[in-house]
C-alpha cells in the first residue's frame, strides 16, 4: 500500500524525472527525506507494480507510426488467457486488454492497439493477428480513430494540486 510519502513521490514525478545529475537526490530535497529513502521507495513501487518501469516513453506519431487501430476480438472466455499473451507480445501492439462485452451492440472481449506507418501497415498487423487467432476467433474488427475530440493527462490530486500523469489505460 502507498503511504503519504509515496503519494508525494508520485506527484513529484508524474511530470517526469528531473533531468539533473542526481535526480533522486533532488526529489529527496523537495520532499524532505533522504535520497536513499527515495530510491528504496521507488524500488518498492516497482516491485509491487505501482510503477511499471522508469523509462522513456516515445511518441509513436513523431516516430513515424501515424496510424493506430484499435483491433477488437470476440474470443471464448475460456480461451482469452491463452490468446491474450500471444497477441500482446507482437512488437506492433502497444496495449492489450480483456474487457466486458455489451451484447448485442458489442460482442468483443479482447482489445489490442496496433501501430503502423499508415493505415495499410496497421491493417496488415490486424490481418497477422487474425491469422494467429484462426480457429479461436472468427469475429473481429479494426477501428481507426478519425478525430481526437479531447486529450488531456490523467491527474491525481495531492495537496490541492493537480499534475499531469501519463498512466497506461
Amino acid at each position, binding site marked *: 500500500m502507498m503511504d503519504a510519502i509515496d503519494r508525494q513521490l508520485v506527484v513529484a514525478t508524474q511530470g*517526469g524525472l528531473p*533531468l539533473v*545529475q542526481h535526480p533522486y537526490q533532488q526529489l529527496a530535497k523537495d520532499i524532505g527525506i533522504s535520497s536513499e529513502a527515495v530510491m528504496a521507495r521507488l524500488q518498492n513501487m516497482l516491485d509491487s507494480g505501482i510503477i511499471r518501469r*522508469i523509462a522513456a516513453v516515445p511518441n509513436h506519431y513523431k516516430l*513515424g507510426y501515424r496510424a493506430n487501430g484499435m483491433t477488437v476480438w470476440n474470443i471464448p472466455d475460456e480461451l482469452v488467457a491463452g490468446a491474450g499473451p500471444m497477441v500482446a507480445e507482437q*512488437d506492433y501492439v502497444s496495449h492489450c486488454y480483456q474487457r*466486458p462485452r455489451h451484447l448485442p451492440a458489442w460482442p468483443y472481449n479482447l482489445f489490442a492497439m496496433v501501430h503502423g506507418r499508415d493505415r495499410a501497415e496497421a491493417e496488415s498487423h490486424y490481418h497477422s493477428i487474425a491469422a494467429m487467432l484462426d480457429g479461436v476467433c472468427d469475429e473481429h474488427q479494426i477501428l481507426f480513430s478519425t478525430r481526437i475530440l479531447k486529450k488531456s493527462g490523467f491527474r491525481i490530486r495531492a495537496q490541492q494540486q493537480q499534475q499531469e500523469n501519463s498512466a*497506461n*489505460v
Partner: protein
Amino acid sequence: MPILASMPAMDDIDRNILNQLQRGFPIAEQPYKLAAEQLHIGEDELLQRLQAMLDEGVLTRFGPMFHAEHLGGGLSLVAMAIPEHDFERVAAIVNSFDQVAHNYAREHELNMWFVLATETAPEIDTVIAAIEEKTRYPAYNMPKQQEFFVGLHFEV
C-alpha cells in the same frame, strides 16, 4: 521496426538512447551517468539529448510510468453510439467532464470512445450515469478485466 525516413532529425545516438531507455532506467545516485556509460556517451550529452527529445515531442515523457489502478483511482474505457447530427453536442457534453481524459471519434456504430480517470473507483459509475442523463444516450462501460503484458518497445 524499421527506421523511418519521415522521422524528425535524429541520429544514431538518439536512436540508441530511445531504444535502450524505453526498456528501463536505473535507480542509483547518478543514474544518467550509468545509462550514459552503457550508451558510450557522456552524462551531460545524455541529459541534453533527453531534454531536446522532450522539447521536440519525440518523447512524450521520461520517468516513472504509473499503474493508474494502483494509485487508488478509477479508470475505464467508455463507448457511445451517437447519430451524426447529434455528435458535436454530445462531444461537448462529454468533454466538459474533467474526468474524461481522452476522447476519440472512431469509425464504428459505437463512434465515440473515451477514457475516464477518477479520484475514486466508485466515481466511474457516477460519472457514466451523469453523462447518460445529460446526453440521453447509453454509455457502455468497458473497464479493463485483464491486462496482457506488452513489451511496449518500438525499435527506431
